[in-house]
C-alpha cells in the first residue's frame, strides 16, 4: 500500500516550491516526523516532515526541481522495488531529463551585474544575485561593507540587509510626508534609488492612504505603574529569558484586553462590510535601526499573558533577524501596533494596513510633569508619560468608538495589576 508525499501548502500566495535537498534516499525507512526534504519558495526556506511512515520507494521530484503545491513529489510504501525479478536486469533507471549533447551543463543565462561594487569592492556571485533579486541598494551595501572593513560583500551581508528590508503587507511605516514643492532649482547630490522592497511598500502605503479615510486620535497614558513593575522585575526577567522586558508587551496585552470590549477595531473591512475577527493576531512593527521595519505577526495574542507576549514577540524578532520567518509569520494580522519610541518623538500617525481598520502607535515614554490627585490634594509630580494614538478607518466606525477604545486602553494600562500578572509567571 503506497502513500504519496505531496508538496505541501507553503503560504497563502505561494504556488510552487523548489526542492533544495532530499534528506532521505530511495529505499530508506521513514518515520513520521522525519525531515524529508528542504523546499524554497520566494519567501522562505523550510523543512518538510513526513506524516506517514514506511519505505521511501520513489522520489519523483528530485533536488533542484520545482513542484506545484499539491503535486506528488515522492511515494512511500510498496511501489516498484528494485529487486523484483530474479533474472532480469535492474529496472530501467528513470531517464535523465533530455539535454542537448552540446549543453551537457546548463549554463545560467541570468546576469546579475558586475563583479565589483561601485567602490571597487568584490562581491560573491551569490551576493550579486541576491542584491538584484531583492532590489537592494548596492551603493549602500558597498559603503556599509567599507565601513565594516570587509574585504568583500558576501551572501551573509546581503541576507542581513534583506531581513531589515523585508516588509510584510501589514507593515505600518512612518507617515508619508507630502512632497515638497519648490520653485528654486534643487541641487542634486546623492541620489538614493529605492530598492524593490521599498518601492513595493511605498505603493501599498500610497494605496492605503488614498483609499482609507484616516482619522488619528491620541490619548496620554501614565506608564508609571508599569514602569515600576518593569524596574522591579527587570533582573529576574533578564535572567529567566535572556532579553529585557520593554513596554511593548504591556501595551500589546492591554490592547488585546481592550479589544474584547471594542471588537470593531479588530476587524477587516472590504469596502462594504466589517468582518469582526475571532482571534486577535497582532502585527507588531519593530523599527530596525533606520534600515526598515519588520512586522511579524503574533497569532492569537489574546491568549498570552504579558510574559507570554514578551516571549512571542521576541521569538518573532529573532526569527526575523535570522531570516527564518515562515509565510504564516508574515500574514494574517488583524490589528497592528507601531512602536516609534526609540528617538523620543511625541506621537506618530501611522498608516493603516488594509484590510485592517486600525493601528496603534506608541512613542517615547518619559518623565513629564503631571498632576496627581491624592486625598491630600492635587500635586504636580514627575510621572512616566507617553502618548498612545490610533489611526482608524472612519468607514468602519466613528470617533466616539475609537475614543472609547483608547480610553479603555488607557485605563487598563494605568490600573491593571501588572505586578500580579507578572509574578505568577516569574
Amino acid at each position: 500500500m503506497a502513500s504519496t508525499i505531496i508538496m505541501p501548502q507553503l503560504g497563502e500566495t505561494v504556488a510552487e516550491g523548489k526542492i533544495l535537498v532530499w534528506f532521505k534516499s530511495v529505499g530508506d525507512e521513514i518515520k513520521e516526523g522525519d525531515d524529508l526534504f528542504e523546499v524554497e519558495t520566494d519567501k522562505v526556506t523550510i523543512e518538510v516532515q513526513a506524516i506517514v511512515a514506511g519505505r521511501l520507494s520513489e522520489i519523483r521530484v528530485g533536488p533542484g526541481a520545482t513542484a506545484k503545491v499539491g503535486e506528488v513529489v515522492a511515494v512511500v510504501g510498496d511501489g516498484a522495488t528494485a529487486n523484483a525479478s530474479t533474472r532480469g536486469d535492474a529496472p530501467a533507471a528513470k531517464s535523465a531529463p533530455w539535454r542537448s549533447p552540446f549543453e551537457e551543463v546548463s549554463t545560467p543565462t541570468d546576469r546579475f551585474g558586475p563583479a565589483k561594487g561601485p567602490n571597487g569592492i568584490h562581491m560573491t556571485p551569490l551576493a550579486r544575485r541576491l542584491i538584484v533579486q531583492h532590489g537592494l541598494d548596492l551603493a549602500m551595501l558597498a559603503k556599509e561593507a567599507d565601513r565594516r572593513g570587509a574585504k568583500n560583500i558576501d551572501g551573509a551581508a546581503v541576507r542581513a540587509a534583506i531581513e531589515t528590508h523585508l516588509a510584510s503587507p501589514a507593515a505600518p511605516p512612518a507617515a508619508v510626508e507630502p512632497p515638497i514643492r519648490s520653485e528654486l532649482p534643487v541641487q542634486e547630490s546623492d541620489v538614493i534609488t529605492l530598492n524593490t522592497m521599498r518601492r513595493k511598500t511605498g505603493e501599498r502605503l500610497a494605496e492605503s492612504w488614498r483609499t482609507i479615510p484616516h482619522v488619528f486620535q491620541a490619548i496620554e497614558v501614565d506608564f508609571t505603574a508599569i514602569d515600576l513593575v518593569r524596574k522591579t522585575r527587570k533582573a529576574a526577567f533578564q535572567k529567566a529569558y535572556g532579553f529585557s522586558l520593554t513596554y511593548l508587551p504591556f501595551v500589546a496585552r492591554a490592547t488585546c484586553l481592550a479589544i474584547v470590549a471594542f471588537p470593531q477595531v479588530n476587524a477587516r473591512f472590504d469596502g462594504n462590510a466589517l468582518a469582526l475577527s475571532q482571534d486577535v493576531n497582532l502585527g507588531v512593527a519593530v523599527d530596525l535601526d533606520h534600515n526598515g521595519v519588520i512586522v511579524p505577526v503574533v497569532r492569537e495574542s489574546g491568549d498570552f499573558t504579558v510574559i507570554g507576549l514578551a516571549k512571542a514577540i521576541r521569538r518573532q524578532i529573532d526569527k526575523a533577524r535570522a531570516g527564518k520567518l515562515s509565510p504564516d509569520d508574515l500574514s494574517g494580522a488583524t490589528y497592528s501596533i507601531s512602536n516609534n519610541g526609540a528617538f523620543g518623538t511625541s506621537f506618530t500617525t501611522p498608516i493603516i494596513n488594509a484590510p485592517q481598520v486600525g493601528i496603534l502607535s506608541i512613542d517615547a515614554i518619559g518623565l513629564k510633569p503631571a498632576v496627581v490627585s491624592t486625598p491630600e490634594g492635587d500635586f504636580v509630580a514627575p510621572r512616566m508619560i507617553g502618548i498612545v494614538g490610533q489611526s482608524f478607518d472612519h468607514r468602519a466606525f466613528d470617533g466616539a468608538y475609537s475614543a472609547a477604545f483608547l480610553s479603555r486602553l488607557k485605563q487598563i494600562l494605568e490600573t491593571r495589576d501588572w505586578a500580579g500578572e507578572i509574578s505568577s509567571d516569574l
Partner: protein
Amino acid sequence: MAGLKAATAPRDELQNDDIGLDRRLELFRVQVEIRDCEKRAYDLFLQNMIKGTSHLSIGQEAVAAGFGVAMRKGDKSFCTYRGHAHTLARGASMEGMLGELMLRDIGLMRGKGGSMHLTSVEHDVFGSYAIVGAHLPIACGAAWRAQYLGEKDVSVCFFGDGTTNIGAFHEALNFAAIWRLPVVFVCENNLYMEYTPIGEVTAVKHPAADRAAAYGLERILIDGNDADVVYRTALAALEKARDGGGPSLIECLTYRHSGHSRADPAKYRPPGELEEWLKRDPIVVYRGRLRDFGVAPETIDAIEAQSKRKVEVATEACKASPPAPVELLTKDVYADGGWAWRN
C-alpha cells in the same frame, strides 16, 4: 595435418569428394562476391564516396570463405579492421557492408562504426576490432560462455601476422589453452605487418604456427589461398572445439593484392612478389578447382555475373541511402539507448 597443397586437386579427392559440389559452389560464390564487393569499395574510395580508411581483403578471400562456409549458425566470428570479407562470408548483405563503408543509414551499423568495426550479430559477426589483438581475449570470453552454458557454438577469431607479436595474442592463447576453450585462432599471414615484412619484426619464421607449441597447441600451417584446404582445416578445428578438445591456432599463408589500407600504394613490396602471388589468386585457383570437379563454365559464369549484379544493386541502394539521422549521435552509448552521465 594440413600442409601446403598443390593447386590442382589430387585424383583421390576427385573420386571421394568430402566437400561436395554444393559446398564448393558456395565457396566459389562467397569468394567471388567478396572480391567484387571489395573491388567496388576500392572504386568508391577513389570516388570519395567512402571516407576515412578502408582495409581491403583482395587476394585473401579464401580464408574468409573457407571458414564462413564451414561455420554453423551460432558460431561466432571476431574480425579485425580488415573484416569486410569475413562479414560478407557470414551472410551479411553487400549493401549493409558497402553502406557502412559509405557511412550511410543503410549500413550495418548505420554509419556509427565505419569500415573497421563491421558488426552483424544477426549473422553472428560479433564485431570487427581496430586495436590489434584486442579481440583475441574477447573471443576467449565468448568461448568460455559456450563452455559454461554447455552451448555448442565455437568462436572463431581472425587476425593478421602482425597480431602475433602483441601481448593480447599471447595472453589469449595461453588462456584458451589452459581452459580448453572452444575457440579457433586464425592467423592470415599475408607476409606484411602494415608496411613492414613480417620476418623483420618476428622472432620466428611462421609467426603463428611456430608459436603454437608455446601454448601446447598443434602446429598448423596451410595454404590460405586454397578455399578447400581452408575449409577442411576449419571443419576439423571447429569439430575439435565443439567436442571439448580445446582451441586451435591456424596459420594461413596468403597475400593481399593491394596496400595495407587504401592509403598505402605498397611500394615496399619487392619486384615480382605480387606477380608470383597473383598466379595463386584464390579465385583463379578455385575456378580451376571447379573445372576439375566438372562444373560447367556456364555455371561458373552465372555465379560471377550474379555477383556483379548484386554489387550493382547494392551500390545503387547505398548511393540512394541518406546519411544517418543526427539523433544517432548520442544514441546507444548506454543500454537505455541514451548517453546521460548525469541527472
